[in-house]
């Protein structure tokens, strides 16, 4: 395949100027304009679904089902969701205020931050580009998209289609690698939305710091799973976990990274995984009839292979490597915390099982690591659930499921600590690119002025007394 043609630096600067100019002119302000652009996003996806699926197949070996459920479907529904809610999201708020200020017309306007940059990753190259982009459009920003150079077919197709469907003066796609991204980061943006790795997240935050640019960082981390063998249906748990893990061959920020289970339930869990495994791939994952995504490139393929050979745990299911960068999802038992598999986010089709004494031990292990994007807990026990709610921290806490949470637009998707900050989905995407601008309008009448008279110098004793009232407020005895 022909390699991507990167955007020259001079052109990147010109694009930035053009997008800034368009924003300054106010073109993206009318809601009718934004509505039209959002509908065009939906049309872009619908009218090119075959080409988009082909690009995902080329980049990641994705089965059409794995292209539509997590990517195409959500792109269309998010765009339409934004259209439906555009008026509501953009309406100024009129908060309730204390009586003495009730005539000041206190308002919170929703205003676009300005010209924004969105950098997206290779693993879900379409949905992770388009969903933040929808927020930027809905908010009235102009936007430059920088998709990952590691998903070449997707990036090339995005670069071709966006200018065909959307206003090229307001929205643009640029192509490039480290050099081009570094150049883009040196320009002034009003918000930077980054989805990707923790280490690059630091570079983005550092560049943004120089210009005091606000940032959203959607990073990853090692999202742990706890299976409460004492109080859950192990078969259902294994099936839901494996389903989540095998998506995109484990190359997802919300992939269940590793599984904690009580020691005495480890074998039962393995058997349950085996059963689910066989039902997903009756002919084995590497068979030509099987649906199984591949690892993105040779470097990551070798990395995963190396992990499989270096682990001190036991590979009990799968792990065979095939052609075309495919690796059978591998279940590994008896893994300890200092195993090579636990050094960093696996981001591949390998699932370590770490036996523990009890839930408290699992929580203690989780607390000692960096804050994950998601914690998955399979349990029916209220007390266990509350332990995770109260004693752990994570972007999200998901019970008895993997992944389905990203379909719920009304709950924010975002990390904490090393897994990032800020959030998106639904209205949260809109909020990420919106500045809430406070407004008051103080009347000029004599009554208001009379009321405020005491505030002017020279400060008098009666004024002092008047303003000291709050100081005498009654404090509850608690």
């Amino acid at each position, binding site marked *: 395949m022909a390699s991507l043609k990167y955007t020259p630096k001079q052109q990147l600067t010109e694009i930035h100027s053009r997008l800034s100019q368009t924003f300054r002119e106010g073109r993206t*302000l009318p809601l009718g304009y934004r509505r*039209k652009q959002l*509908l065009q996003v939906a049309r872009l*996806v*619908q009218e090119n679904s075959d080409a988009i699926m082909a690009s995902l197949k080329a980049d990641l070996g994705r*089965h*059409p*089902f794995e292209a*539509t*459920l997590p990517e195409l*479907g959500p792109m*269309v529904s998010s765009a*339409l969701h934004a259209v439906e809610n555009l008026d509501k999201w953009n309406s100024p708020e009129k908060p309730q*205020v204390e009586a003495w200020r009730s005539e000041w017309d*206190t308002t919170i*306007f929703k*205003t676009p931050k300005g010209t924004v940059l969105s950098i997206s990753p290779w693993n879900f190259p379409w949905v992770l580009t388009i969903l933040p982009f929808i927020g930027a459009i809905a908010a009235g920003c102009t936007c430059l998209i920088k998709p990952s150079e590691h998903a070449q077919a997707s990036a090339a197709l995005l670069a071709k289609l966006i200018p065909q469907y959307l206003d090229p003066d307001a929205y643009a796609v640029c192509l490039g690698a480290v050099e081009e991204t570094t150049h883009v980061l040196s320009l002034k943006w*009003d918000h930077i939305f980054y989805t990707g790795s*923790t280490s690059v*997240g630091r570079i983005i*935050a*550092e560049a943004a710091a*120089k210009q*005091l640019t*606000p940032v959203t960082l959607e990073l990853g981390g090692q999202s742990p799973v706890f299976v409460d063998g004492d109080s859950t249906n192990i078969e*259902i748990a294994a099936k*839901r976990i494996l*389903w989540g893990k095998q998506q995109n061959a484990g190359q997802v920020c919300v992939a269940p990274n590793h599984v904690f289970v009580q020691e005495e339930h480890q074998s039962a869990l393995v058997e349950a995984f085996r059963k689910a495994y066989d*039902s*997903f*791939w009756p002919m084995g994952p590497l068979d030509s009839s099987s649906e199984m995504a591949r690892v993105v490139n040779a470097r990551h393929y070798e990395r995963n292979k190396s992990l499989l050979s270096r682990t001190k745990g036991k590979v009990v299911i799968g792990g065979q490597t095939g052609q075309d960068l495919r690796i059978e999802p591998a279940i590994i038992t008896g893994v300890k915390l200092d195993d090579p598999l636990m050094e960093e986010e696996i981001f591949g089709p390998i699932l370590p099982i770490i036996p523990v004494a009890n839930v408290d031990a699992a929580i203690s292990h989780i607390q000692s690591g960096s804050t994950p994007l998601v914690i998955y807990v399979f349990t029916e026990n209220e007390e266990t659930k509350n332990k995770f709610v109260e*004693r752990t*921290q994570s*972007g999200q*806490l*998901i*019970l008895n499921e993997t992944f*389905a949470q990203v379909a*719920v637009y009304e*709950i924010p998707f975002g990390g904490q*600590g090393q897994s*990032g*900050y800020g959030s998106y989905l639904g209205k949260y995407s809109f909020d990420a690119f919106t*500045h*809430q*601008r*406070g*407004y008051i*309008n103080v009347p*000029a009448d004599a009554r208001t002025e009379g009321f405020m008279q005491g*505030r*002017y*110098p*020279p400060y008098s004793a009666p004024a*002092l007394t008047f303003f000291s009232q709050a*100081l005498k*407020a009654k*404090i*509850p005895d*608690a």
Partner: protein
Amino acid sequence: MSTIATIPKIRDALRATFRSGLTHSIPWRQHQLYQLARMAQNERELICDALQKDLGKPKTEVLANELGSVIKRALKSAERLPEWVKAEHPEVIDRQKPWNPTIYKAPKGTVLIISPWNFPMMLSFQPLTGAIAAGCTVVLKPSELVPTFSQLLEEIVPKYLDPNAYRVVNGAIPETTKLLELQWDHIFYTGNGKVARIVASAAAKHLTPMTLELGGKSPVIIDSAYDIDLAAKRILWGKCHNAGQICVAPDYVLVQRDKQDELVRAFQKHYNAFFPKGALDSPSFGSIVSDSHYKRLTSLLSRTKGETVLKGRADAARKRLELTIVKDVAGGDSLLEEELFGPILPIVPVDSLDQAVDFVNARSHPLVLYAFSDNESVKQRLVSQTHSGGIVFNDTFQQLAVSELPFTGVGESGYGYQFMKYTYDTFTQLRSSIDMPKEAEANLAVRYLPHSEEAVKALTAAVYTPIPPSRS
């Protein structure tokens, strides 16, 4: 003064406290908030004295602006807390209702608040109120430019607030640098753009989220049709507060050329009313915080090419500087180079509203845009054609009293919101959750491999939802 070596230990101890769950209980947090209010009430004389010593701050200004609002907001936050901490259960589509979608409000953890010298009481305790309410543990680093006040905090805070959860750390650049080397779960910085970049850079290494409450030149646009006398009074009041050393001080004024002299006369009139004997020795007017700021301000004045119409007297020894008003200031003047943050009021004459808007838009986004106008279309124009943290019509400074408005900057004036629930939200992690019932398995069955063609069709229906037509 904390030595540098103890700083990591302090942070670790606060983290351990957070992990222990001490700050979890709502009544516990409410108690801390009441204690904060008690501290402001009981120690008000000491606080006023310290601010008088460090800043020459008039007692009325401290009581009205700083202590009053700290007490009120601490009490109000305690009152609202049970409502704020409630997990949200957003309305979702029918299919997802059985999943119990929830948004928990979780404290971010152990946080750092760096406060400035100019409104040190309010700008330390307002963020702290939100952090306490959110259940975080906190290091508060007040400014070394107000040493009496900062030292006082180190003494009184542990008497009222639980020192296992809240600590005051004093120091200058070395101590602040040490603090910034450590990992925090949020950093709340109020100050200037230059230091903000240093803070943001340090935060980037740890991927720490931040709130930056900065400043900038907050312009005032006066519509000729507005009551110039009233505008002058309200602008002057805002400018004179704390001798102009406020992030939301009206920095410079844009007025129609043919109204400039009328405005100047109105300023002079109200100035004489505020300070019948002048401001130099008036207890109603503050001092400049330090020698270096004093020199900075006098240097800016010496270089202006505008015409001085009210010349403020100066006393370097006492760091007293009366208000100076300069008219006919043009773009490029020394008084337009940086945020004044002092008792200097430049007037920039313009020939039209267009020119005023262009002037403002050619510069960094201000923290607040002030405008005096009764004309609805002028107001609408200013709202839609300018960018600023906030926009205030027909007064100055008062927006800070409105605790229901998010106080924030944009662009060079910063990001992140505060006041009341906005502060609480700043220190809170929205932790999303669902709980998938076992019974859902029947509905979920179609998602599992291997996928039949029917399954693919059913699940991909979402892609082909009819798209509404674009209206022309």
